[in-house]
């Protein structure tokens, strides 16, 4: 494209470009296309069509050569990916292999990625809890990062908007830490989970066990049926892609919806190199793309650009978008870009047994489990660390194989699975404090196969995280003891940041262009036709799984962008 003809430019011109087709990019595509904008979605990975490209979705266990396990040589070749529990023989094709896309670990960081149409929305954990003002007001109250430029009230209608469309199951629990939403029927709790819930209610003012809110269709309403998605069958095989569209993904929901408008152009295999900034027009005019296969460079043009490349890749693209006006990367006048990155701390785990409720077992499967919203430091500061943690909890008592004996005895035992004891587990999900020292940056010398600078990732835990994870162990042990659980085993996993797959920050929102990169509408302060609405925009991390908030922020920003464009503001 050294000398693009007028025709060539026209053919490559759209109203909007969305970089990335994962959970937030899919939402940008849907909202923009629905509002009538000719929208180009650029995805660096291969195409994955709903159902058609889920090769394992209906396979029986015995159809997998290694019965689900990843062979040793493959594991050894992928030490980072090997730590991701969803990476199995049946989902192998949806994960980036270590050697394909290297990065620089200044400190240990497990960067788990899914480069394909739909991104990680195919393989996500589907927990979808709203934020509350206890989260949005956190930085201002506790004096870290910068104040969010929005509050819960700004996002609430957009949470409703995305929940109704995606299909989120849950109860209206009436809890201050976790606002209610537009819910499909909740997941049922079992006997021990109800017992634990009652114990928490009896012993604590502020600790509530609820059915976790999940992006699985416990019921398919007209809204999801119109998307061709039917009820979740509780197969718990989501990572393969779902033949029923039983969980929300870009592939099953937002992208086909956008396509139906006739306004969507999907271009897989398009590695975005940078965003093109026009010094004279003082705005971004398009993006530069390297074809994944041919490595040829092409340019595409649009009035507005959404960057949804997945948090740290969004940082990478923006930092690599250098111009005379922005020598440090697009919108990065302050040098803040890439800094104040953060994640969630999943180190604290707990397991136990229970001798009670022996008259009950669990039978069948359900897509979700249970959740205790943050209780620590919720209303006032009460510990020697800032913020707190949410807790995932589940109990089960299934029948499993009895593998005792040899010969005919063993064979008979295997044919007669035995009822096991109650098995109980919990894990904390801790808020981490974004810090300037936790950062991503461009490597000054090394590049990948497409000529993109490698990303340096320099992120670590801090003292606050250590105090918090120890508190989680103490509090969970105390609650488990109060519930009469026995054989309590706690563990601090000591896993590297990143394995949470909740990477956030680097292009944070804020009120002041001197201390933040994005405004209250997710526009770059200094380049208003570029919007960042994936994990990169997060000012703080809270304790909720973040995807639902990315979806709501994206829908909100996209609707604002359309209005701003029609008003001639961008």
């Amino acid at each position: 494209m050294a000398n693009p003809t007028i025709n060539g430019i026209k053919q490559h011109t759209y109203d909007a470009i969305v970089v990335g087709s994962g959970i937030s990019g899919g939402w940008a595509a849907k909202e923009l296309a629905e509002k009538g904008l000719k929208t180009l979605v650029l995805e660096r990975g291969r195409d994955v069509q709903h159902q058609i490209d889920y090769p394992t979705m209906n396979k029986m266990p015995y159809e997998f050569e290694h019965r689900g396990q990843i062979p040793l040589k493959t594991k050894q070749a992928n030490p980072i990916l090997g730590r991701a529990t969803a990476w199995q023989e049946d989902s192998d094709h949806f994960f980036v292999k270590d050697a394909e896309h290297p990065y620089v670990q200044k400190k240990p960081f497990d960067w788990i990625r899914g480069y394909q149409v739909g991104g990680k929305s195919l393989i996500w954990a589907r927990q979808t809890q709203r934020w509350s003002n206890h989260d949005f007001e956190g930085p201002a109250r506790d004096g870290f990062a910068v104040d969010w430029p929005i509050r819960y009230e700004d996002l609430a209608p957009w949470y409703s908007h995305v929940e109704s469309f995606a299909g989120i199951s849950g109860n209206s629990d009436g809890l201050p830490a976790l606002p209610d939403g537009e819910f499909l029927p909740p997941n049922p709790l079992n006997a021990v989970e109800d017992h634990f819930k009652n114990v928490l209610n009896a012993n604590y003012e502020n600790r509530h066990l609820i059915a976790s809110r999940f992006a699985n269709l416990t019921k398919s309403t007209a809204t999801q049926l119109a998307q061709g998605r039917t009820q979740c069958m509780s197969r718990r095989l989501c990572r393969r892609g779902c033949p029923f569209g039983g969980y929300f993904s870009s592939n099953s929901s937002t992208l086909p919806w956008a396509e139906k408008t006739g306004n969507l152009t999907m271009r897989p295999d398009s590695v975005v190199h940078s965003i093109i900034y026009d010094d004279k027009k003082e705005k971004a005019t398009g993006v530069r793309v390297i074809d994944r296969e041919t490595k040829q460079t092409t340019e595409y043009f649009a009035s507005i650009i959404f960057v949804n490349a997945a948090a740290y890749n969004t940082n990478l693209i923006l930092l690599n978008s250098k111009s005379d006006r922005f020598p440090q990367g697009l919108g990065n006048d302050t040098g803040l870009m890439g800094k104040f990155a953060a994640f969630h701390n999943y180190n604290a785990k707990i397991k136990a047994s229970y001798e009670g409720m022996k008259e009950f077992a669990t039978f069948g499967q359900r897509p979700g489990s249970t959740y205790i919203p943050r209780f620590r430091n919720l209303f006032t500061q009460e510990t020697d660390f800032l913020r707190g943690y949410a807790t995932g909890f589940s109990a089960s008592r299934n029948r499993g194989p009895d593998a005792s004996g040899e010969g005919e005895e063993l064979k008979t035992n295997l044919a007669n699975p035995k009822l096991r004891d109650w098995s109980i587990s919990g894990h904390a999900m801790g808020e981490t404090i974004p810090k300037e020292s936790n950062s991503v940056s461009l490597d000054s010398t090394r590049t990948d196969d497409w000529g993109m600078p490698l990303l340096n990732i320099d992120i670590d835990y801090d003292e606050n995280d250590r105090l918090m994870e120890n508190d989680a162990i103490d509090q969970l042990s105390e609650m488990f003891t109060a519930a009469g659980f026995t054989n309590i085993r706690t563990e601090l996993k000591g896993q590297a940041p990143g394995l949470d797959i909740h990477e956030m920050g680097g292009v944070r929102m804020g009120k002041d262009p001197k201390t933040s990169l994005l405004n209250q509408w997710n526009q770059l302060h200094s380049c208003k036709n570029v919007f960042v609405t994936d994990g990169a925009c997060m000012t703080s991390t809270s304790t909720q799984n973040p995807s639902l908030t990315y979806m709501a922020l994206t829908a909100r920003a996209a609707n604002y962008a359309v209005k701003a464009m029609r008003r001639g503001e961008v």
Partner: protein
Amino acid sequence: MMNRRVAIKNLVMLMTGAAIIPHHLRSNTGPSIRLSDLPINASQEAQLAEIVDALIPTTDTPGAKDLNVHLFVLMMINDCYDEADQAVFIQGLDQVDSFALKHSGKSFTHCDQTERVELLGKMKSKATTPIELWSFNRLMRLRTIEGYRESEYVMTHILPHQMIPPSYDGYYPASNTPQPEVSTHG
């Protein structure tokens, strides 16, 4: 017994189409399946087949050998273990006959099923079993049970696998005996 075994084996082959004819029936060379790393010969493969057959024998339904589970075990040892574990597995396999000789006065293949079952039970004792043989038995047992439970035959005829599980009941009476469940890969 033999007739029934052959009949069942033929039945299984018809059903699965997995008509693998072991090479060792014709020559004592390599194993009947391609193994990239595991240095194993046909007679070792035949010995393993006898062992898995003893662990999960043919009855009125096919046993582990009928279902070619020994080949699954070899494939898993080849693909999912490192060189050191593989070496111990083969050393242990080679110790089976001397262990049988010591305890039963004859080689494993010459023992009857009762004696074989006793030997397999004895191998579980870490104190009285050579460490390689103990390790072999542990691995063989784990992978044989896995290969048997997750074979097409067992998952369709013994414990039918339900791709769509029954709806969830968190207060299922423990005294109920449901249709046996096979755990899914969820």
